[in-house]
Every structure is written in structure tokens, then in C-alpha cells.
């Protein structure tokens, strides 16, 4: 549905995007992940046709964004960063205006506006002035305008910024419910959001793609070792000796010490689950075992690892 080829964008000296290529299949939800200034917003602005790339090509639904700009814009619903809106209008009036310029047929406008207001839960503030709404409500109105002409493609730049936890969950559900029907690219700083909502993640750093995969695969692939946490009452020296003697153990770290109860992090080789062996060893030595669990490497850690390399 969306293909991005060799996208490069320079602002004067700053290279915001550097030969970025990727594709998004129809109905897929793709997450853009990256630190501040990575180039997420820039990529989105080029895909929506707001500005042309310095080099490279983007097609949406088979149409070239630069050549068939107007046709592409009909396919896209866009929520820019910080959802810029007309602050002097009331919510309903604003959405009505958007429905007009988005070419919703006159007879459907009132209904469409009503539906979309229901969808993002702004019906109860429909007569309020947009500029006087709270940040989260402004964000919802921004989302509403993006959804207005039922676009097959949605480009959402940080859609859940400023929303309350309940609303975040609702918006995520909304996005998930659209998966399969709409092609969606969203950017975010919230990593769990990506694993919850997106089928695929692109991690961008300094204008380049650092990794592309499903959230699950990324976690899997980039894990260099397995870790487990053991809580046990044992003499420190003996414990270390016994654990190190186990085949597959790469390292041991005693992280906490309280009344003789130790919390130990055990590093083992990738693909080997040492939990049964460790448990047996500890119990066999007659020590009191209080806890034993595997530590999953979170997307956060992977992200940090990827963007702080070099």
C-alpha cells in the first residue's frame, strides 16, 4: 500500500532522513520508533505530500506522492504532531469544515461528523471552542479530523500524546480495530504501545533505519543472553561457586543483600533455559529458595541498545 524508496531529506546542513526504504502492506499497522530528532515527523510529512523529499520516491496505493499529489491526499488521513487545529472554531463547526474540504458529500456530512465525534468521544464538547479544550480533547479532535473521510491510509504522528490512561487504551483499541481495514503508520515514544498495537516496528535513529521487524521478533533477535533472577538464602561465596560450576552459566551478579537473603541475576547462554538446573542445585544444597524467574529483555532495553550503539 505504501512504498518508500531511498528517501533522503536534508534541511540545509541537517540530514533528517538518509536513504530510508520500507514498505507497508495493505491493512498493516506499522510503528515508527525513534528518539527525538530521529526523522519520524519528517518521513510522515513526505508520505502525506506536505513536502517533497530531497531524493527518493514514495507511492501510496500505487500513486506517486509527488506526481499524483492530489489523488494521494484523498487516500490519507493525517494527524500531524501536536494536532494543529483552528482554535477559533467550535468542535462541530471545525469538523464540518474539514468534511467539506475533504469532499464528503453534502448529504452525508452531518452524519459523518456525528459518527466520528462518537468514535473519539468528543460529542459532549461539540459546541465548545477548540482552543479552549484541554490538550487531550484537542488531540481527540485532531484524530477525528483524520478519520473524517474514511481514508484507507492513516498517518498518525504521536496519536496518544497528552491523553489520559483510559483514553489511551480506547484510542489504541480504536487503532487496533481498524487494523486489516486500514493501513496505518503511527509514531510514538511509548514502547509498550508499539508491541500492543503494531504488527511491525521500524526503529529510526539519526535518519536511518536501525531495525525493522515484528515487536516479538525484535525482542527475540536482539537478545544476546538470557537472564534469570534468583532469590535465595545462602552463603555468598558458596552460592557463587556452585552456580558458576553449572554448564551454560556466563555470569553472576549479586544485586541485593538483605538479612542473608540474596537476590542474584544469572546470565546464561542464549537459547538455554537453566531454570530447572539452578533450582535443583540450590535446593540440593539445602538453601531456602524464595523466588526464581526469567527476566525478559524489554523493548525499551532493545531500543536503548539500538540507538546508543556506536
Amino acid at each position, binding site marked *: 500500500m505504501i512504498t518508500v524508496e531511498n528517501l533522503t531529506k536534508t534541511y540545509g546542513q541537517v540530514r533528517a532522513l538518509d536513504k530510508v526504504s520500507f514498505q507497508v502492506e495493505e491493512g498493516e499497522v506499522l510503528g515508527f520508533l525513534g528518539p527525538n530528532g530521529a526523522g519520524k515527523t519528517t518521513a510522515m510529512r513526505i508520505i502525506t505530500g506536505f*513536502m517533497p523529499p530531497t531524493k527518493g520516491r514514495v507511492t501510496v496505493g500505487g500513486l506517486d506522492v509527488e506526481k499524483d499529489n492530489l489523488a494521494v491526499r*484523498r487516500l490519507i488521513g493525517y494527524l500531524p504532531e501536536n494536532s494543529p487545529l*483552528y482554535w*477559533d*472554531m467550535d468542535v462541530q463547526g471545525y469538523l464540518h*469544515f474539514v468534511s467539506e474540504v*475533504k*469532499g464528503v458529500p453534502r448529504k452525508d456530512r452531518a452524519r459523518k461528523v456525528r459518527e466520528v465525534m462518537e468514535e473519539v468521544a468528543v460529542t459532549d464538547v461539540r459546541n465548545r471552542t477548540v482552543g479552549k479544550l484541554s490538550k487531550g480533547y484537542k488531540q481527540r479532535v485532531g484524530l477525528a479530523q483524520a478519520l473524517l473521510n474514511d481514508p484507507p491510509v492513516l498517518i498518525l504522528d504521536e496519536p496518544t500524546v497528552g491523553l489520559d490512561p483510559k483514553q489511551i487504551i480506547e484510542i489504541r483499541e480504536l487503532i487496533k480495530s481498524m487494523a486489516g481495514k486500514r493501513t496505518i503508520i503511527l509514531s510514538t515514544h511509548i514502547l509498550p504501545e508499539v508491541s500492543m498495537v503494531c504488527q511491525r516496528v521500524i526503529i529510526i535513529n539519526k535518519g536511518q533505519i536501525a531495525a525493522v521487524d515484528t515487536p516479538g521478533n525484535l525482542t527475540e533477535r536482539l537478545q544476546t543472553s538470557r537472564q534469570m533472577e534468583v532469590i535465595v538464602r545462602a552463603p555468598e561465596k558458596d552460592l557463587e561457586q556452585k552456580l558458576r560450576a553449572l554448564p551454560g552459566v556466563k555470569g553472576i551478579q549479586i544485586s541485593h543483600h538483605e538479612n542473608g537473603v540474596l537476590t542474584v541475576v544469572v546470565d546464561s547462554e542464549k537459547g538455554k533455559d537453566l531454570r530447572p538446573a539452578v533450582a535443583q542445585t540450590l535446593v540440593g544444597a539445602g538453601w531456602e529458595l524464595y523466588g526464581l524467574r526469567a527476566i525478559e529483555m524489554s523493548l525499551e532495553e532493545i531500543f536503548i541498545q539500538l540507538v546508543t550503539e556506536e
Partner: protein
Amino acid sequence: MGNTWAIFKREMRAYFISPMAYALYVIFLLLSGYFFTVGISYYAHYSVMAMQAQQYGGLPPFTETVFRNLFGDVSIVLLLMVPLLTMRLFAEEKKMGTMELLLTYPIRDIEVVLGKFFAALAVIGLMLVLTFTYPLLAQYVAGDQMEYGVALSGYLGLFLEMAAFIAVGIFLSSTTENQIVAGVISFGALLLIWAVGWGEELVSGAIGKILAQLSLLNHFEDFSKGVIDTGHVAYYILFCVFFIFMTLRVLDSNKWRG
């Protein structure tokens, strides 16, 4: 066309939501009413003198005298007011970031520019319509001496001149995201374009002629005498087209720079 209408309606609403439009209407009506009253009194005074001393060679035509002065004064007032109306048209959208949405909607740049242009023109046009009371009042005072044809031709000229002012204002508003800057440079530019004809007498030859041709003021003269010259009408229309075209160029180059 539908899109131009949508933009037009939005801009009109924006003008009348804020106190700006109302403030301008009040001030405009006060000033123009004052100029009209002074003009009429002056003419009355003058005609008494002319009757006493025949050597003045009769009276100048009423409508031309009174309304020519009035239109001249009114154009100066509007020259000050047009930048206040046009400065926000693009500068505000750029500053607020709404431009990003507007330009990614399935709508052409020309439709955006025309919608805004006609909205500002409608606000000014309505001001002019409100002053139609003056010819009616003049007829009450001067009877048959009030020639509606001359007044209407003057109104047409004034309207075209305002369209030209607005085109300049919109163009300059598209060049910056600072409303105040847009307003100030529009004001300066309008004064310059307006006054450029004064150089006519000082600069001899071809340059003087060109300056005279460029001046918005010179093209306005004939209208206020009751003469509608298609050349002058074409001048104003071309003037607007040129600045609207320039605005489109700016919007385009903004996209390229980001």
C-alpha cells in the same frame, strides 16, 4: 469551487468571531461619515461663495466634487485597514501549524488562496455597501445634482482598488509566519505602490510614465469622474492575478523548504 467556498466560509466566520471586523466597521463608518459630512458642508459653503462672485465661473459638478474627495479619503482609510485584515490569512496558519493540515487535504492551493482572497474582499465589500447610504443622503441634500452613475463608477473603482490591496496583503502574509511583520510590510508596500505615481512629475521620460502606470492611485482617477475604462479595469484584475500567482509560488516554495 466547493472548496473555495468552504475556505471562504471559514475565513468569514473567523473574521466575525473576533472583535476585529466589528472594530474596523465602527471606525470605518465613523471616519467615512465624518469625511462625507465635511465634504457636503464644504461644497455648500463653496456654492454660496460662487453665487456671490460670478467670476468663479460657475459651480463644479456636485457628485464629482463631493464623492471624488470622499473616495480618495476612504481609500486611505482602507489602505490602513486592509493589512489588518490580510495579515493573519497565511501567517497565522503557518504559526499555528494548521497549514500542514490544510495543505494535506485534497484541495488545491489556488482554492485556498481564492477562498481567503474573497473572504477579505467580502469584508471590505460590505463596508462599501454600508456607505451606499451616503449617495442617498446626498440626494436628499442636493436633489437632482446627485448623479448615481458617477457614484457607482467610483464605487466600482474603489472595489477594484481594494481587491488589489488585498492581493498584495495576502501575498505578503504568505511570506512570513509573523502576523505583525506581515501587517507592517503590507502597509509599507501598499503605501509605496499607491504613492509611486507621485514620481511622475519628478522623473522625466519613460520611467516617469511607467511609474505613473504602476500607481494604483492614477488608475483610480477616471472611475471617480464617472468614466469606466476597460483598460483600468484590466489593470486592477491583472494586478490581483499577479499577486495571487506570487502567493501560489510562495506556498509551493515553502513546501520545498519544509
